[in-house]
């Protein structure tokens, strides 16, 4: 009988555990679960689940249309559940693009004027590039879980006490 590969969803969370044996504490492992974090988040919040100096991995629950965002550096997104379309625009107003040294994504007030770059449609297990200087918007056709590789910024939400095992 072929083996079954086990994945989680927000409706069916597989969660492990920490067994302390010696001189240690559960808090030291900053142990959380992507699907729990997404389930308990508001739409399009970007909750930090991993942090290494200024670098982050953030989880977002995608429902319908997101705001428009733009970033001075690349980001990537992995669809961990569901399906999402990403719309890209090259802004015609250069002032919309954050300064090169600006870390993290910036949320825009409105859809920017500019040239349509195209769309990318990702489903479960797919990874897409969110290129530097390109404005983007998520459009989730079903409730989705997105895992975003980025740098700590204005939209990054840290709530470690809420998400980590202690």
């Amino acid at each position, binding site marked *: 009988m*072929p*083996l*079954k*590969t*086990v*994945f*989680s969803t927000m409706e069916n*969370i*597989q*969660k*492990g*555990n*920490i*067994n*302390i*044996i*010696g*001189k*240690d504490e*559960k*808090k*030291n*492992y*900053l*142990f959380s*679960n*992507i*699907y729990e974090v997404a389930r308990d988040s508001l739409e399009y919040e970007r909750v930090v*689940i*991993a*942090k*290494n*100096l200024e*670098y982050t*991995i953030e989880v977002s629950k995608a429902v319908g249309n997101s705001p428009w965002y733009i970033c001075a*550096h*690349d980001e*990537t997104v*992995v669809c*961990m559940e569901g399906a999402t379309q990403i719309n*890209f625009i090259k802004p015609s107003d250069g002032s919309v693009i954050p300064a090169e040294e600006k870390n993290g994504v910036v949320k825009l007030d409105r859809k920017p004027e500019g040239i349509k*770059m*195209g*769309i*990318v*449609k990702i*489903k*479960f*297990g*797919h*990874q*897409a*590039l969110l*290129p530097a200087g*390109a404005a983007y918007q998520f459009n989730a056709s079903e409730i989705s879980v997105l*895992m975003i*590789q980025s*740098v700590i910024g204005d939209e990054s939400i840290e709530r*470690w006490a809420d998400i*980590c095992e202690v």
Partner: protein
Amino acid sequence: MENDIVEFKGLVITEGEHRVSDDVSTHGYHSFEIGQYRFERDEYFVSIHHPKGTHSMDVDHFLRDTMRDVAWGFFYGWLNFDDVFGTCNRYGSVDMYTGTYNGAYREAGSDYIERFDSNELLACLKEMLSDWVNEGFNPFQAPQETGTSVGRKNGNNDEALAFQRETAERMVSMPGDAQIRTDEGGTPVNRHFSDVAQDEPEVLAEPGFENELGAYNFFAYLSRSPVTWNPSIASVVKASAYCPTSEEHALPVIHGNDRVEWFIQLSDELIWETGDKVTGAPRARVTMKAGDVSVMPADIRHAGLSPKRSMLLVWENMTPGLEKRYASGELPPVPVSF
């Protein structure tokens, strides 16, 4: 004392190339010497001789550990082959130790450590692998996927030893970057991942933007990994690197961190047993299931067990000089306090 044992600043590099025995043993293998270390193998075991004694290891385990040491360029920090022997990357040089990071050995004064130029030691280990790995055995593959490592000298598997991991500069699938794995490219879906979807995303770029947008099936990419416990680099954001890997059976080494790293379990289950980086004293057992996230603090070592082939995302920070900042205490071993 703690920093001394972590950094060993006073250790001088032993100069000179390694030496290979002219003759082979009755089992058909050469022995290897570098500095004060001498390595021999028989049908089942490797003997590691040093000025304070000899340590023995199961040959299968030793070859899998050595393969990772070579493939990872000695990696970050400590690669403990077991609870006695291992290497520590000093970035340009490498410490090879026996008992130095084992509390009992140190207390008894039975430990031994020697520092080598990285390239010299790498050359020694590569030649050792070529001589000691027989035809049909691939130290990158899980035990059920490959032949045996034991027995008398029987050919070689240099082709398997030459495997190079893929390292994306920006993201897999982007033009000019590492590409997706395919049947035609010699990377079929692994038997444990036969149910993983292989559909590719749709990238509908407007004219002129074809090289700027990209996406691929990340999980399918992992399902086709031909090796275990050997991270590739799939995407990079500044110094942030996604290093996904497929894992089956046991991580050959017990990895002692010289910096923080993070694990995100993408599928199935993986068990980590952690211990104190310096003494090896057990600290915790961390069982991770699909969707779980855990940091591996900079003051531990960790051993991994994956009962079924599973997908793991290892997340690394490639900022230069991090090991010094952790060793000095500038950066805490746990990156977040709350």
